[in-house]
């Protein structure tokens, strides 16, 4: 298989399979969660709490007062990496082209030099988070294989994308294929690893906001 065939496979059937496994995995995981059900709360809500869950979905994106000071690395690197990743995935013109080719959706991208800088910032933030995880007593205690796996799965697409963009390491076609494979690996494992928090974060925040909202507390 020459590099071009490899790229065709990476862009074609490999991507299709990865997406299918990803979607099936997400559905399965959501079934696993919702299948457990939840008893109706029979206590009288203090206030009409409609919307409190949805509010927390958004408000929890900001740190509680005084928290940044307590762990600036996690917050700052966390924001840089999450926002950076969103920008790189959804605002880089070739990514938008790729998404358009699959879904028909289209929007304007950002200049590639800017996206490049954001990618570098995201990689640095990820490295900072790894060092923090390895050195902070709390994070070291909590961390296991799954945490480092999720970290690696996230770093790989950023790193291979950066290398492909700059024509580094391998010949471009091969590098681009590796980039696509890294994305596919991420997609396949997303539902079954810590990366699934990208979906359940909305659920968890909603539950939290709803539980607190019934008691008249904005969480």
């Amino acid at each position, binding site marked *: 298989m020459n590099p071009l065939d490899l790229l065709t496979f990476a862009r074609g059937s490999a991507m299709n399979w990865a997406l299918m496994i990803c979607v099936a995995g997400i559905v*399965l*995981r959501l079934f*696993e*969660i*919702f*299948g*457990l*059900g*939840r*008893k109706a*709360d*029979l*206590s*009288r809500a*203090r*206030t009409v709490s409609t919307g409190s869950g949805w509010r*927390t*979905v958004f408000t*929890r*994106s900001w*740190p*509680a*007062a*005084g*928290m940044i000071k307590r*762990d600036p690395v*996690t917050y700052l690197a*966390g924001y840089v990496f999450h926002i950076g990743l969103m920008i790189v995935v959804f605002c880089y013109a070739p990514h938008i082209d790729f998404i358009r080719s699959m879904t028909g959706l289209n929007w304007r991208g950002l200049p590639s030099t800017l996206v490049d800088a954001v990618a570098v910032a995201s990689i640095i933030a990820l490295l900072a988070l790894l060092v923090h*995880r390895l050195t*902070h*007593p*709390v*994070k*070291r*205690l*909590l*961390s*296991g294989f799954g*945490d480092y796996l*999720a970290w690696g799965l996230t770093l790989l697409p950023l790193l291979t994308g950066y290398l492909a963009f700059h024509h580094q390491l391998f010949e471009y076609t091969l590098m681009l294929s590796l980039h696509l494979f890294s994305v596919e690996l991420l997609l396949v494992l997303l539902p*079954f690893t*810590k990366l*699934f*928090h990208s979906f*359940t*974060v909305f*659920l*968890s*925040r*909603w*539950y*939290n*906001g709803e*539980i*607190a909202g019934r*008691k*008249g*507390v*904005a*969480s």
Partner: protein
Amino acid sequence: MNANLARGINAFKEVIDAPIASFFSSCVHCGLCAEACLFYTETGEAKYTPIHKLEPLRRIWQQEYTLTGKLAKLLGLSKSVTDEELAEWEPLVYDSCTLCGRCSMVCPVGNDITYMIRKLREGMAASGHAPPDLIGATTRAVTIGSPMGIKWPAVLAQIKHVEKDTGITVPVEQACVDYLVLMSSMEIINFPEYLAALSRIFKQAGVSWTLAQDAFEATNSGIQIGASDLAREIVSRIVVAADRLKVKCVISPECGHAFTALRWEGPNLMGRPFGFEVKHILEVLDELSIAGRLKTKGRDQRPLTYHDPCQIARRGGVVEQPRRLLNAVADDFREMSDAGTMNWCCGGGGGVSANSRAEPLMLQAFRHKKGQIEATGVSTLVTACANCRIVMEESLEHYHMKVEVVGLTELLAQYLDEDKTP
């Protein structure tokens, strides 16, 4: 697997619901919950990280309710929860968690960690891994009627004292009144001023109320230890009395977990909504004040601050009421840092103060509150939970701090304008 462990594991499996599955799926081990927990901030020990305390429950969830976890278990790749592990976790779950709920407010992915620890305790208790003191308190609550072993004659003796001191008759077993008043053991033993204050305030406000002989105790060790069946039995006494006396509302006293037990867990424990309302005493006093029925005269000149009991404020939604009430009688009310829903616990909630082996840790955890109180420069600390009060009184004494702790109801009664009876 021994029978106790099997019971515990079954209880773990039973409490896991969609929110818990979502919370565990969302946790990325960022460790920020540690920064919100006073047991971590005051000791610096990583094992006190809130989400770490849930490790046994997390593994049960993973092994029982996820495909990958089931596969890993089948292939022998995951560790089963053992008796030894639960014994090791017992101090983390009971001694170093006051169910204060602060971690649930800061978790970036929105995990209600406290919700999970409350549920985790069900499995811990079922497997026999609860602190002996909490087992004793719960046994007394179920068999005698009160965790501190108090019976009705002790309440009656206090009623007589109050009637003698105030000249007001304390109503007992009065049907069709507005309020059924409950007390906590701590108030019956240590703070008789609560009942006296309430009698005076209610007389002035023209409130109809009663005590019930078989339901005077508001506290519920069952929810602290995590035994829902026992919690249900304890709460049912109040429900039965409230229904029998046909009261409109039951007043939870100056106690944190009693409010949670009755107001939020009560109907769920009983499996039906209540036919009466449940209010914390501060809510009732605030309503009376707003309606112009609670009249005061004179103002307290002392600089004072207010400690928010976690179950009343963050887990109960009673935040504005104490401030309105305090501002009505105090000239120099100073807020502590992080006051309100982000308050820091006294260190003794959630059963910690009833667990004697946890005392050194509790006193260490109090250092956060100590710093907050010192920063306000006051020597009067007002609160609305008898447990917070006793914990803070003991801790203040331990640290040789000259700060007086006062219950808010009692403070209001001091400034009651008893001449203006409506």
